């Protein structure tokens, strides 16, 4: 489906509308809220439900960043809490998933980096990234 954009004649008296015989009645009011952050350049509501659901499901494959992107993309859904109930369902669950995963990951990473050798012992040296890279020969590029 391709929708064309056109100006409403009464709002742009200066522009010469000689060529467009397509009078659009403003079906949607100008206060229409778009579900995506891109506004009129983004998705329609029906497609949004599909997208939100797919992103939510894919995020379970250890992809919290996808959940975060989901929340970012459908930010208007979170802001206007009464519109788009179906999308909101998935987006809120994505947000919760992202926060939980980030909390877990952050706690592990901070424990690792702050605890250091005192907490972990010799295992720390085996797990830290620059040693792993050295062992596998990945860091000798430049």
């Amino acid at each position, binding site marked *: *489906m*391709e*929708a*064309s*954009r*056109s*100006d*409403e004649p009464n*709002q*742009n008296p*200066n*522009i*010469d*509308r*000689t*060529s*467009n*015989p*397509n009078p659009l009645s*403003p079906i*949607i*009011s*100008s206060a*229409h809220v778009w579900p*995506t*952050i*891109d*506004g*009129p*350049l*983004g*998705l*329609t509501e029906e*497609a949004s439900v599909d*997208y939100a659901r797919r992103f939510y499901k894919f995020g379970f494959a*250890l*992809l*919290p*960043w*996808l959940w975060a*992107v989901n929340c*970012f*993309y459908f930010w208007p859904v979170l802001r206007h809490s009464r519109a788009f109930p179906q999308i909101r369902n998935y987006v809120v669950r994505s947000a919760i998933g992202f926060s939980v995963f980030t909390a877990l*990951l952050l706690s*592990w*990473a901070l424990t*690792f*980096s702050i605890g*250091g050798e005192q907490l972990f012992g010799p295992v720390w040296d085996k*797990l*830290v*990234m*620059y040693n792993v*890279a*050295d062992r596998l020969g*990945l*860091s*000798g*590029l*430049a």
Partner: protein
Amino acid sequence: MDRTEQRARSILDTLGEELIGILTPVSICMFTVVLLVCLLNSDPSSPSSASFSSIATAAYSESDSDSPWAKLLGAFLNSLVFVAAITLATFLLVLLFYLRCLNFLKLYMAFSAFVVLANLGGEILILLIDRFRFPIDSVTFLILLFNFSVVGVFAVFMSRFSILITQGYLVVIGVLVAYFFTMLPEWTTWVLLVALAVYDLAAVLLPVGPLRLLVEMAISRDEDIPALVYEARPVIRNHHDSRLVQRRVWREQRPSNSSDDVENNEVVTVVRAEEEVSVSVPLIERSRAEESSETFLEGIGLGSSGAIKLGLGDFIFYSVLVGRAAMYDLMTVYACYLAIIAGLGVTLMLLSVYQKALPALPVSILLGVVFYFLARLFLEVFVVQCSSNLVMF
């Protein structure tokens, strides 16, 4: 008369916004590459990285002991091999597009984006971690890298995705590939840039050029070319509008009454998105001979909503030029940056005049190379003299 006045007014209104929309990502890409070069190449006088081999050094690998003539000859051979490889790859792309293997191309594009993000991105992150001794553990690193790459593939592969994130990932891909290209030997880099500028000119403007064939095929079939292209956010002229704007890559030339709005409301003619698909860039990772090619685009065109499109190959080679300039001194970086931006401005002006697909490399690269050598040979001496005599610093 009235119309022309209105047309002039509406172009001026939105020209700044559209220009900024394309200049910002180019600048960000160049800045990031310069930053990476400055951070990671702490020893500029070391011999050219013998550990980096790719198809661009297949014919000749430079070493410091060769005479300038030998280096120049070697650089020519390297560039010849590289441009030949790219031409072949582009013709292959044209053939596949002609045979309508679009699914295969899209899958290939997704796969190459994944390889670039995971492989090259991982390498650069490891280099950064190594440089700063950041105490991150491998589990966290792997999870973050995996997330980053997979979402990047989604951003590039899916047609409707957040504009900002897609643009961000395209810039990141450009930065990663450009950084690896700056590791080529010095003479090879400069000769290669000039050779690619000439190739771009030929491939887009000659009637037998592969990019022109691709563009014409895509227009005649009204289809998308599956390739990596940066599209600036279309400037929405009318904020009262509440209809959905369909962003399509290709658009036939249609009578004005049914097409999208562009700058001129009266005659919406050629809102053709013309892109040139080119540069299949094979990169061979050090000793591992895995070849990954990407379908980048080179060239500049107009999107179906009037937004400017710039191929990712252009991002990459602009950044390579500036990155290589950064390896000498920051003064050359400033000179080359200004030259490239000026060249891009000229190209955009030509685009608005000619309204067809244009190669974005030649003007900028040639200006950039000229300014690099001028700055290196003449400006530096001048500035050093001024500074040491406290005239200007």
